[in-house]
């Protein structure tokens, strides 16, 4: 079996040792990162399970980053950028759209749960949306459990 059955994580429980999902968020500098910042400024609470990686544009995110993220131990990945038409670099997120539609299909074909990998458009003024997306994503992944596939345990 190549699906990890003895990960170094505690599955059940609510105590301090209970497993918490780790989610990587690729946030585009001009929209999503600003939106996340706004969420912070507005004191909107969201689960602390995310790690934000700021990129100049969602189009900068290479599918291999997503694959490596899962391999390195992340339970979920979110790529978020400007709404189509609002990209700071005019066209970056159009490429993101195509690329990630396909990447999602590829991950699914590999047997990875497609819900673990999400793409969203979050603009700079959408603080509440950022909070909402993250909260929902963390809940979904908590329910799915830790990612046991493509885990680098070597």
């Amino acid at each position, binding site marked *: 079996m190549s*699906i990890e059955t003895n990960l170094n994580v505690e599955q059940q429980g609510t105590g301090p040792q209970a497993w918490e999902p780790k989610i990587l968020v690729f946030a585009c500098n001009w929209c999503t990162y600003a939106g996340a910042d706004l969420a912070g400024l507005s004191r909107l609470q969201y689960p602390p399970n995310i790690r934000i990686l700021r990129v100049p544009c969602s189009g900068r995110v290479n*599918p291999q980053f997503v694959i*490596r993220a899962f391999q390195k131990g992340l339970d979920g990945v979110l790529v978020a950028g400007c709404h189509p038409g609002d990209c700071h670099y005019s066209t970056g997120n159009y490429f993101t759209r*195509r690329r990630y539609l396909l990447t999602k299909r*590829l991950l699914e074909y*590999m*047997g990875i749960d497609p819900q673990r990998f999400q793409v969203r458009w979050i603009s700079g003024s959408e603080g509440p949306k950022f909070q909402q997306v993250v909260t929902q994503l963390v809940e979904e992944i908590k329910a799915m459990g830790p990612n046991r596939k493509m885990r*680098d345990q070597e």
Partner: protein
Amino acid sequence: MNEITQKMRETARGLLNSGQVALVLGWEKGYPWYKSAPAFIDRGEDVDRLVFDEFCHNNLSKYLLDLVAVEGRIALFVKGCDSRGINRLIQDNQVKREQLYIIGIPCPGLKDPDDAAGKKQGDEIKDAAKCQDCRYPNPVVYDLLLGEKVPVAKRSSETQALIERLEKMKPDERYEFWAEQFSRCLRCYACRNICPACNCRECVFDRATPEWLGKANNLIENQFMHLTRAIHVAGRCIECGECERACPVNIPLMALNRKLINDIEELFGEEPAGLDPEKKTPLGRFELDDPEKFM
């Protein structure tokens, strides 16, 4: 001797002797009898090495990347799939159309050398797996066509059957299937090196700084390599099937590449790669109304 071989030699002889081209890329017989290999002919008197038979698998368009420094024009013989490789390279600005003299050969489909290995010449041999899905047996670009165009043959596709079987599996089963395939990978990179869509001057897997791909051979690194390569060539794969043929441990790479081709055609309605050198690749362009089911 078959008619196409005869014409190949005549054409090559004429081109070389007249000085029209500096080099002719074709195929010659290899060893054993069920192997044909790429041939590089630069003198008129050597053209009798050229053959076209049911084992001429190699996609010669890949070699154009090595030949940019050649002075003068290069002639090459191409089957349907190979010609799409040329368009691919033109699309990527890796080769200039004017430098090429393309001689097209309508391809009736090739045979599987592994099946021939246990047999004698003249025996019935299985169709090559890569030819089963062929949609473009006739060259899509050429300066000269040797022979009559052939119809698209209807063959049962082992690859499509595998894709369908995989799509029906549960995710865990699918994961185990691919994990089993990738754990056998030797990381020889024959698939990458033979692929005309893989034409980066320095491949991400060869770079030590940053080291995207570690040197160890284990499931994780192999998964990373194959998934990354699949997505990097997505939309640019010309369906020649050489990757799968080259693989020494029989990893069903076309079940991976073809799935992405199917998805691209379904999602974006894009036409297959390498048909029109002017068009941009599906992932290299966009439409304002592209689907965004998940956003």
